[in-house]
């Protein structure tokens, strides 16, 4: 059996990250163990934004040059992005419950707009399944892929624009990160591991799309 190096490295990186989180990262004084959800929640949100941002870029270029490879990439990245957003939407409430006292609040703009983002890209996947013509499917989904990504800057800025329970970023802000070095290192290890996992998933999903399209094309020619 041939072992593919990228999924293996990504898998080992994720296992290494979990070991570091569990055994080598200190507990936060106020939140206790629940704060460790940070190392899985925030990288998943970053990867979801990256995935949908790349869907929008690939879709925009596809509408211009009409290259099927871009459509396949957008399709793959959208599916992986939905999976990571699902993780965000599950781990967020599990962190919120012990800290805020509730799993979810419907008036919180950050939470609800992230749920909308999930719905948009689930719709993207449903749309792809519903349109039979490959040309129309690629065009319609490219438009939805671009429009959906417009929510990303809004979601990012929502914690500054509205009164939300969701905290503002403690990393990626103008001044220094508000995390001790040990926690910061764990965050970066996690950030790199889950980005690598995204690349491995998209590559595998893209290869599936290529094989599927090749089979469909061959079946068409035989018919």
């Amino acid at each position, binding site marked *: 059996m041939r072992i593919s190096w990228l999924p293996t490295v990504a*898998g080992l990186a994720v296992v290494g990250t979990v070991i570091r989180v569990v055994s080598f990262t200190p507990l936060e004084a106020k939140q206790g163990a629940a704060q460790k*959800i940070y190392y*899985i929640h925030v990288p998943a949100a970053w990867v979801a934004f990256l995935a949908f941002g790349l869907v929008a870029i690939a879709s925009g270029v596809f509408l211009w040059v009409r290259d099927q490879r871009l459509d396949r990439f957008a399709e793959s990245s959208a599916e992986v992005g939905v*999976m990571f957003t699902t993780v965000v939407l*599950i*781990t967020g409430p*599990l962190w919120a419950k012990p800290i805020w006292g509730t799993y979810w609040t419907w008036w919180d703009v950050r939470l609800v707009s992230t749920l909308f983002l999930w719905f948009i890209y689930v719709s993207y996947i449903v749309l792809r399944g519903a349109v039979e013509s490959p040309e129309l499917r690629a065009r319609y989904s490219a438009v939805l892929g671009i429009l959906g990504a417009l929510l990303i800057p809004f979601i990012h800025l929502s914690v500054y624009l509205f009164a939300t329970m969701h905290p503002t970023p403690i990393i990626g802000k103008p001044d220094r990160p508000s995390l001790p070095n040990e926690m910061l290192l764990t965050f970066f290890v996690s950030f790199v591991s889950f980005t690598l996992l995204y690349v491995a998933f998209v590559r*595998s999903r893209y290869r*599936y799309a290529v*094989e599927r399209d090749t089979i469909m094309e061959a079946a068409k020619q035989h018919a």
Partner: protein
Amino acid sequence: MPETSSYYHVAYTVALGIYAAYAVSLYVRRKRLRVR
């Protein structure tokens, strides 16, 4: 410090479970295509 470890355990179990399930689904879908 509050006792919040059960939420942390559930969050990691569910998240890693979703990643593993997606990896398996990709493997199965590609395997099925090749059987065709």
